[in-house]
C-alpha cells in the first residue's frame, strides 16, 4: 500500500533538500590547522589554578589591612614618643 503523503504543513522534504545542499562541511586551511596544533603542543604546561574561595580571599585581605593599621599605629607611637622625649 503506498504511503499516504503528509499534509503540506508537515511536508518539509524540499526545504530539507535545500538545507542539505546549502549547509556543506568546509575544511580549514592545512597551514592554519598545523599552526594551531603547534601552538597547542608547544604551549606552556597546563597548570590547574583553582580560584580561592571568597571567605579565604576576604580573610587574607582583612589580615593585610589589620597588619598595615597596626604597623602604622606602632610607627606613629614611636615618632610621638621620640618627639616628647626630645623636649
Amino acid at each position: 500500500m503506498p504511503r499516504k503523503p503528509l499534509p503540506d504543513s508537515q511536508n518539509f522534504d524540499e526545504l530539507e533538500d535545500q538545507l542539505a545542499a546549502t549547509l556543506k562541511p568546509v575544511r580549514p586551511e592545512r597551514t592554519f590547522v598545523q599552526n594551531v596544533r603547534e601552538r597547542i603542543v608547544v604551549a606552556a604546561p597546563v597548570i590547574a589554578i583553582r580560584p580561592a574561595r571568597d571567605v579565604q580571599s576576604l580573610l587574607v585581605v582583612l589580615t593585610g589591612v589589620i597588619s598595615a593599621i597596626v604597623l602604622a599605629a606602632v610607627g606613629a607611637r614611636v615618632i610621638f614618643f621620640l618627639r616628647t622625649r626630645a623636649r
Partner: protein
Amino acid sequence: MPEPELQDDEILAQALQGDKDAFGALYERNVARIYTYIYYRTGNTSDAEDLTARVFQRAMHHIVNYTDRGVPFSAWLYRIAHNLVANWHRDRSRRQEIPLSDAPLVSKGDHPEAALMRTQEQDALLRIIRDLPADRQQLLILKFVEHLSNAEIGEVMGRSEGAVKSLYHRTLLSLRDEVEDPAMFS
C-alpha cells in the same frame, strides 16, 4: 603492522593526564567540525580561524575540569564554540558593524570552496539562516553539516531529544514561510 588507531575515549583519558600529544590528536579529530560550525555562525574564514583556535586553547586550559558524563568530547567543544560565537556576536553588535545578513555573502572572508559551489538560491537561504536565532542556527548546522541525530544535538545543546525535535519543526516552519516569501527569498 600499523598500530591500531586509539579510540576517542582512550585518547581523552591520556589528554586528561596532561598528555599534550593526546590533546593534539583530539584536536586533529575535531578541528574541521568546529571550524565548519564557527564558519557558518560567523560567515567568514578569518573569524572562523580565530575563534576555532580560541576554542582549542580554552579547551586545553580547562581540560583538567572536564568530566566525562558519557557525552562525546565534541559536545563539550561545541559548547565552548557556541559561547565564544555568542560573545563574538555581542561584541560585534556593540561595535555596530554591518549585520551579517546585510554583508555580501561572497566576500573576502567567505570560504572560496563553499562560495563557488553555492547557487543564488542557496545564498539566499544562507542569508535567512543567519537571521535565525542562535539556537536554531546551531540546530541546523549540527543536523545538516554534522548529520547528528536529535539525541546527539540535545547533548550538545543541553536539551531533551523531544525539545530538539520540537525546535527543529518550528525552525522549518518559520524557514519555509520565509523561503516562500518572494521579498525575502531573492
